[in-house]
């Protein structure tokens, strides 16, 4: 009996194994075709997205400037215990490599890097370079200390030591208003130098505020769009999309014209007698909210609209027929079904708002600048790629964390649709 069953399965399985191979062969062409279709996009993503982002993330911890220009010094000083001053070998390597660094712009690179540790370092380097003797038969410790007494200070060499490893956390710490104290432990920077935590908070508050305002303005409008007959809703939809036809810069400038103290809004309010003197509407937080909500509102409306269009009105009718007040029916039955649209819209608007740069720069005051402003400042003005990358990386991490929390919250509400 058992042998018969065993036989059966064996004979049944054999053709199936053959079938699988046949299926694979038949599907191979399809797979290749699909991969070819995806290839351009995948390539584009690698070149335009994965590579720049990873290179930027690397720059936030990159510390190879001194190591690449002065490899021997870097290697030697890493062995120093940080007590007193380093031994003659370090001095010798340093003097030798400092002299060689003049060629190929190496001096500029280490000068900029060491200046982050102490802003007087660049002049110290140039002065030392000028004073170096032509011969090599000297005691470099004495020579350097002779050129500038700072070479006899522990803190000077500690600063050099900090630039020697290939990675550093100084940019990331600085972006959180933290630094390494002399002894190496993490400490807060002096109170008058704290800035970025405040900026991050401000960025989140502005992005969150803009998202909420967009949701409150966009939800009723999307609902109207979804319930109107198609001909009317198409017209309204064009009005919603109209802002996309104008450049962001022009729209932002238009808000300045409208909101400034002699602008349309203020003169209108004064003419109707609501206010006596112009109120400050631009170059402050109000202006930032006005302009950003205006730009980002369509990104809230479109996902909401597309989800709402697929929710039939019978659900609300059903809830009403079951005894729910129309408002309760809307809140308990309609809104939960638009949750996926709310989720898409808010996450889209929030993430776009987090990275806003031009609008707050134009219509905001000094205390309304967001993280992107400082990223742009470090890349364009001071050429400090490490700081720019660290701020960018932290913004990315914060965004990802918030997204994960959000994803969890929304998933708990379970967006199962039939």
């Amino acid at each position: 009996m058992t042998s018969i069953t065993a036989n059966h399965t064996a004979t049944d399985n054999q053709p199936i194994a053959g079938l699988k191979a046949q299926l694979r062969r038949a599907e191979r062409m399809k797979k290749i075709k699909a991969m070819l279709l995806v290839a351009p996009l995948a390539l584009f993503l690698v070149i335009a997205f994965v590579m720049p982002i990873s290179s930027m993330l690397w720059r936030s911890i990159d510390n190879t400037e001194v190591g690449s220009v002065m490899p021997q010094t870097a290697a030697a000083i890493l062995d120093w215990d940080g007590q007193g001053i380093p031994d003659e070998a370090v001095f010798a390597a340093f003097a030798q490599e400092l002299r060689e660094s003049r060629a190929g712009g190496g001096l500029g690179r280490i000068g900029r890097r060491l200046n982050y540790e102490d802003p007087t370092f660049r002049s110290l380097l140039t002065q030392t370079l000028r004073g170096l003797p032509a011969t090599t038969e000297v005691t470099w410790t004495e020579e350097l200390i002779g050129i500038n007494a700072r070479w006899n200070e522990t803190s000077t060499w500690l600063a050099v030591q900090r630039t020697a490893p290939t990675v550093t956390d100084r940019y990331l710490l600085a972006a959180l208003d933290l630094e390494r104290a002399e002894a190496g432990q993490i400490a807060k920077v002096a109170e008058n130098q704290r800035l970025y935590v405040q900026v991050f908070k401000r960025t989140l508050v502005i992005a969150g505020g803009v998202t909420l305002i967009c949701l409150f303005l966009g939800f009723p409008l999307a609902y109207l769009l979804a319930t109107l007959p198609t001909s009317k809703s198409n017209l309204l939809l064009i009005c919603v999309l109209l802002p996309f036809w104008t450049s962001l810069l022009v729209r932002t400038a238009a808000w300045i014209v409208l909101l400034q103290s002699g602008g349309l809004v203020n003169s209108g309010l004064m003419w109707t007698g609501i206010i006596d003197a112009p109120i400050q509407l631009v170059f402050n937080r109000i202006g930032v909210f006005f302009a950003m909500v205006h730009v980002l509102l369509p990104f809230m409306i479109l996902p909401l609209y597309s989800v709402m269009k697929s929710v039939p009105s019978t659900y609300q009718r059903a809830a009403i027929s079951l005894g729910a007040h129309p408002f309760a029916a809307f809140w308990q039955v309609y809104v939960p079904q638009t949750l996926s649209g709310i989720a898409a819209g808010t996450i889209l608007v929030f993430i776009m708002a987090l990275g806003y740069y031009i609008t707050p720069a134009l219509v905001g005051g000094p205390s309304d600048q967001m993280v992107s402003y400082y990223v742009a400042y470090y890349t364009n003005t001071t050429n400090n790629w490490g700081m720019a990358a660290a701020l960018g990386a932290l913004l990315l991490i914060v965004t990802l964390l918030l997204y994960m929390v959000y994803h969890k919250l929304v998933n708990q509400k379970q967006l199962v649709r039939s």
Partner: protein
Amino acid sequence: MQTGTTNEPLVRFTGVQKTYDGETLVVKDLNLNIQKGEFVTLLGPSGSGKTTCLMMLAGFEVPTSGDIFLGEQRLNTLPPHKRNIGMVFQNYALFPHMTVEENLFYPLKTRKVPKAEARAKVDKILQTIQLESFAKRRPSQLSGGQQQRVALARALVFEPQLVLMDEPLGALDKQLREHMQLEIKHLHENLGLTVVFVTHDQSEALTMSDRVAVFNDGKIQQIDTPQALYEYPANSFVAQFIGENNTLMGKVNALDGDFCSVSFGDGLGTRASRIQALSAGSPTRLSIRPERIRLNGSSEGLPNRFKAKLHEFIYLGDHLRLRCELAGNDQFYVKVPVSELCPSLSVGDFIDIGWRDEDVRALDAS
């Protein structure tokens, strides 16, 4: 519960009219009484006003004039959520973000039924529809028939005085639909429900209902039991809408009590039962069901016998339909059980057909 008012209808439409655009009436002067415990079907082609009537009863449409009463209460100004009427929608309208159980709890929650009591009611109705083990599932995880039963349960769980169903079986396949028809019918009988059911499927209406109201052009053409509707259609619309029907145009020659004699075609004549207020000389439409026509030998001795030309055999398994030509009408069908068919017949033959006086009905000519 109403006591001692068994003759008082539960639902009353009196002179109800409805127009959407102020020009054409969708519902014209509707008067309809529905008794407690009755299963009434509103049947009609699309645009006949049947769904509008249901929506007015549910409260999603307002009558332009006339009154609707539920028991003693005038419904016209009562908002839909206060009517206490259960409703089953065309596509079930089960809330997709709630489980089966949450869906069933919903009407109880809106009525602030105490938790324990609500729990008992939900458990009981789940048992009735035999879906206890599906309580925690979402509607999207159920089959069409199961969703249908949950929708039904949700409309029943708060024990409404009246249950409305708006083409609830339209989305199911034929077999499941027939099964659900019986299931709904049994629920109606066992729970003593009053049901108003809307459909455009005449066989569904005949299977399930105590009474069927046939709608056309905003008016009830006839309201009667399924059998009366089929056997004694009151006008030619009902005769054609319900079941299969052969029609012959003719002229009334003379009246004879409940019968009349009608001439049709080229000098042919028959006696027919008289329905409308027909008078001698008026045109009429004769209506005969295909299964009431006797063939060849079995037509012998019938008062009305004719020769018809056989055009086509249509084989349907349990029976055959013969397409014949009689008095210029080549769409004249005769229904014959397969076993009773003479095998020597072939297309082009002339066959004898006949019918009894009471099986042919002289209706309005429109």
